[in-house]
């Protein structure tokens, strides 16, 4: 027997999504988010088209199969496949087969992909060296660019926008004009945070989700209910908090980065400038090797500092973007009791309750 009530069907899909989320628990949060959104949209489309939830799930694949496919094909930080056939062509049997009937995929392949799915690829060559390898890592230079220029400028722009529009909105609240302005501010905060995510992904190397979260039956709700949904959505408030709170943090990060870079550079170039005949304060030419070594050490420490800060920053932005909204309901419905429709012998999903 298949659940006929929309709430029952919803519960079956939610249980499947819980199992898929558990399968991808050790993966990057953005990858997990994308996989869950894809699965949810697909299963809802199948059910809307007339399939039973269990049939839709059977056609979609077990959580293990789907998780394995995501790890294998979509396991790298930016969604680039570990192996794509664009260079080899579609000759059958030339590669492993993660994309269809994935239960037969080899376990060692999935294991290797798992490491990729949980974080950026390991550095190689000079970049793999313990301390100085940071000089060859693109994420370190991206972080330096972000905290030294881009992030500071963007944070200032976000802050000015949020404070200006927010102040006007609060000031206009007695005239009721403030409310739509405030809603517009929340909408812009969500959009700006998505943009920030793209900047962070390209410069700091932390993957961002490719999709925003679906809002159930959102097409059936009215304008005011949609506004109410926006106001209730955690991501709206997190985005606004980020735009405002990011400013003082960015100022501090900018000041620290610029100071460290200037200090390290000055130590590095002082001997050269001194040799060129320019007078330098408290510098003796005999200290040149020490000064240059100290400069390199400070700049190396700076690259590590911005790399670590970039990792934290990137994951804060990622956490905001993978926040899930509360489901929208047109009608108040009684709490769903999953017991009758989730019996194991009816072929429905039940493992998520564990």
């Amino acid at each position: 027997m298949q659940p006929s009530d929309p709430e029952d069907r919803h519960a079956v899909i939610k249980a499947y999504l819980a199992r898929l989320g558990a399968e991808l628990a050790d993966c990057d949060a953005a990858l997990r988010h994308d996989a869950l959104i894809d699965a949810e949209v697909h299963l809802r489309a199948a059910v809307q088209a007339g399939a039973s939830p269990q049939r839709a799930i059977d056609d979609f694949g077990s959580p293990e199969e789907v998780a394995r496919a995501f790890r294998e094909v979509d396991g790298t930080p930016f969604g680039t496949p570990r192996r794509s056939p664009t260079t080899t062509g579609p000759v059958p049997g030339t590669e492993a087969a993660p994309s269809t009937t994935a239960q037969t995929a080899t376990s060692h392949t999935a294991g290797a992909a798992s490491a990729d799915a949980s974080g950026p690829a390991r550095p190689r060559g000079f970049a793999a060296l313990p301390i100085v390898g940071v000089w060859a890592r693109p994420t370190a230079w991206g972080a330096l660019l972000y905290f030294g220029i881009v992030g500071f400028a963007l944070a200032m722009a976000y802050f000015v926008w949020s404070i200006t529009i927010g102040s006007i909105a609060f000031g206009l609240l007695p005239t009721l004009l403030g409310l739509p302005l405030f809603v517009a501010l929340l909408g812009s905060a969500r959009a700006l945070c998505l943009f920030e995510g793209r900047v962070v992904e390209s410069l700091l190397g932390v993957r961002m989700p490719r999709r925003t979260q679906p809002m159930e039956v959102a097409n059936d709700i009215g304008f005011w209910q949609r506004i109410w949904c926006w106001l209730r959505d955690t991501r709206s408030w997190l985005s606004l908090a980020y735009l405002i709170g990011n400013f003082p943090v960015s100022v501090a990060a900018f000041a620290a980065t610029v100071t460290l870079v200037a200090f390290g550079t000055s130590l590095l170039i002082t001997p050269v400038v001194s040799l060129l005949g320019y007078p330098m304060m408290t510098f003796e030419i005999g200290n040149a090797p020490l000064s240059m070594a100290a400069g390199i050490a400070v700049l190396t420490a700076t690259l590590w500092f911005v790399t670590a800060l970039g990792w934290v920053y990137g994951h804060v932005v990622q956490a905001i973007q993978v926040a899930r909204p509360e489901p929208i309901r047109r009608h108040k419905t009684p709490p769903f009791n999953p017991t009758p429709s989730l019996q194991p012998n009816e072929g429905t999903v039940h493992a998520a309750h564990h």
Partner: protein
Amino acid sequence: MERDLSVGTAWLVVLAVIAKSDEPIHGYEIGRRLSDEAPTGLSFKQGTLYPMLRAMESEGLVRSSLTPSTEGPARKCYVLTADGRRVLAAWVNTWRCASRWLNRIIGGSHATE
């Protein structure tokens, strides 16, 4: 016993389905068409389609856009890019050559094609 398609074959059929569609096509519809066309003994799990589509997008073979749906959340619809069409044409050619060669080797009704 179920058999696997290779990565390349799966990419080929997905690109072909997108190419055949007159308008941007979403993941569910691609999966449905592939399942409908799948021969006996060869299953296609639709959930494995999505990471493939993302990878194709990363490679520049397809382009996606969100399309509002009257049946639920907005759907991500895909169209082939110029690169995608070029790669598909090359793969189709490769596939036909490989198929003719295979048929000649193993024999069969299409051996002389």
